[in-house]
């Protein structure tokens, strides 16, 4: 009898380990597979049973539900108040378009056999038969853009590194997923680490890099452990090493761990941190693709970007670019977070509306109070009101609506939120996390928080609002990187979309 109990950090945070222990205690004969999470975090702990007719799901299971599950003969798929029927039939999951997250939650994360059985390594094997130029053409044709937030075409970046001669090139995977409301990188690394390894390996053999580094934030201990185990397994199986899958290509991956710094998610600050220095942003140019890690040409891509590459190579660029809208092709792994009834991973083609994500998938707020604001794209993303829920979720439409996609995180707030307080927090967060290199960010953030505080207290409100907008302009135009450059986005969007919170009147 095989039962799946997720080992994903989110599931474990609400009792998945205890559920697994309880199942093992009651029936030691049950084979328990610790899979990643399906992404329906509101159903965690989601226990699945392998039956002849497929996997049957139960959730959310608390440790003290396990006894009654056995009484209901859940091992044979018996009825229970927590029964969800066939996992594949759960509408919330079935209606998604899982490409990057195709295997997450389905396989045993550390079973290379499982990985192969579910389509793993097909992309790499095909890539090994193609020239570097052909791989980059395939990638460019797919329309894949950087999922870290900047949305830069992946193919162009790879091409630059390919065309820059050097003795040593690097592939750096940015797994410093610091945006509040985002957790897709973490879930992928915990649930399907070989996909990331495969994507990085394809990048390596394409541009001629023999070393890959995954920079993972220290706040993700489970992801670090799983990635390290997966790398060790990959090395022992000749997926990584001197001879990748028996070819003449050499590629190795090592992990560097962050030390609690949001700005190290900025690519050049990340390079400084990998080099063991303060995470201070570098001025560009030179681009990292020309002079990156240790001064060498470096591909820097986000986890989701690299993890999508194997599928594009396996199924072809056509299959990927058939999805999406305009210049936003393929799928985006959206993350529903905050005060939301049904939070988790929703992977859909670009073009789904915010309304669909927050209300159809998310089911509105967790508190059952009216949804008032939604922050899209992390701490540097805009606050939208419900009047803007019709916006198409793609790179260009979000910019046109005064926001940005970022890493695809969506944080929902109910009517108790005060947007002036949120705007002040955006400035405070920037002050805490600024690397300090450029003045608009380092000093502007502190002055910004002070100015918003004056507005909240009703001191010369109109004059201070004017001053704040002026400061926002200086930060936007004068900062070196997105930290200072985009902090005005949540601030200004809050002022524009929620003017009643900025009147200085006591609430």
């Amino acid at each position: 009898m095989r039962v799946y109990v997720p080992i994903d950090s989110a599931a474990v945070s609400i009792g998945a380990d205890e559920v697994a222990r309880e199942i093992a205690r009651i029936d030691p004969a049950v084979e328990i597979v610790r899979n990643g999470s399906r992404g329906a975090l509101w159903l965690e702990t989601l226990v699945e049973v392998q039956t002849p007719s497929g996997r049957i799901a139960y959730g959310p299971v608390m440790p003290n539900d396990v006894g009654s599950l056995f009484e209901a003969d859940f091992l044979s798929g018996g009825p229970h108040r927590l029964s969800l029927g066939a996992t594949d039939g759960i509408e919330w999951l079935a209606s998604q378009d899982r490409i990057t997250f195709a295997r997450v939650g389905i396989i045993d994360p550390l079973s290379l056999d499982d990985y192969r059985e579910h389509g793993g390594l097909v992309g790499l094997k095909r890539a090994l038969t193609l020239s570097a130029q052909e791989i980059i053409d395939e990638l460019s044709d797919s329309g894949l853009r950087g999922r870290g937030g900047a949305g830069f075409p992946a193919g162009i970046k790879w091409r630059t590194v390919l065309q820059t001669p050097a003795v040593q090139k690097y592939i750096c995977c940015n797994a410093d997923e610091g945006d509040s409301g985002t957790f897709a990188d973490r879930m992928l690394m915990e649930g399907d680490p070989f996909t990331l390894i495969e994507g990085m390996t394809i990048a390596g053999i394409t541009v001629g890099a023999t070393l890959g580094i995954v920079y993972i934030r220290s706040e993700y201990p489970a992801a670090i452990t799983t990635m390290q185990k997966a790398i060790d397994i990959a090395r022992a199986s000749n997926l990584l090493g001197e001879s990748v899958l028996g070819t003449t290509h050499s590629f190795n991956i090592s992990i560097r761990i962050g030390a609690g710094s949001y700005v190290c998610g900025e690519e050049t600050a990340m390079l400084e941190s990998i080099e063991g220095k303060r995470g201070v942003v570098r001025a560009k140019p030179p681009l990292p693709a020309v002079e990156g890690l240790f001064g060498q040409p470096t591909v820097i891509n986000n986890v989701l970007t690299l993890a999508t590459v194997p599928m594009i190579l396996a199924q072809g660029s056509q299959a990927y670019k058939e999805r999406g809208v305009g210049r936003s092709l393929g799928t985006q792994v959206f993350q529903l977070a905050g005060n939301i009834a049904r939070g988790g991973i929703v992977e859909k083609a670009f073009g789904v509306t915010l309304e669909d994500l927050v209300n159809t998938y998310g089911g509105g707020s967790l508190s059952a109070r009216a949804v008032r604001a939604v922050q899209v794209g992390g701490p540097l993303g805009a606050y939208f009101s419900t009047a803007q829920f019709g916006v198409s979720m793609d790179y260009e439409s979000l910019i046109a609506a005064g926001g940005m996609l970022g890493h695809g995180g969506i944080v929902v707030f109910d009517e108790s939120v005060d947007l002036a307080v949120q705007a002040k927090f955006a400035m405070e967060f920037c002050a805490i996390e600024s690397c300090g290199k450029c003045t608009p960010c380092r000093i502007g953030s502190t002055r910004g928080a002070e100015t918003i505080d004056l507005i909240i207290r009703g001191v010369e409100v109109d004059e201070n609002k004017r001053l704040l907008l002026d400061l926002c302009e200086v930060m936007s135009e004068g900062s070196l990187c997105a930290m200072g450059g985009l902090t005005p986005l949540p601030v200004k969007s809050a002022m524009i979309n929620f003017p009643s919170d900025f009147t200085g009147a006591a609430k």
Partner: protein
Amino acid sequence: MKYPPWSQVRALELLAILREEKGPVLMALQAMQKEFGYVDKASVVLIANFFNKTRADVHGVLTFYHDLRTTPPAQHQISICVAEACQAVGGRSLEREIKAIYGQESHDAYCFGNCALGPAVMVDGQLIGRATVEKITQARR
């Protein structure tokens, strides 16, 4: 969590493991903290000499990162996420409650990637979702 007292002999052993690493300073500081629970001031000179860096180089890295601390930690460590997604589900009021009870042991953190099941709190390395004072007190034992 219990850590052995600072020892230069042990510190040098840990640094020797990193001898071949490129850009080893941050890794060295992290190794100190992992072993001793904090980065003893004596290790700044030690790391600088070992890797042929200036003391300013090492001090600069030590003071940049939020994770690194220069004093021994309290017996328990409670990290409370105070970022937006947790704020949306009462993270700020939970923060006030926890700080009132556990004071020195608790500090702010920004995101554990558990944003759909907040508020998120990490107690001695264990992540807790839908955190409450009761759950934290239980995990702290």
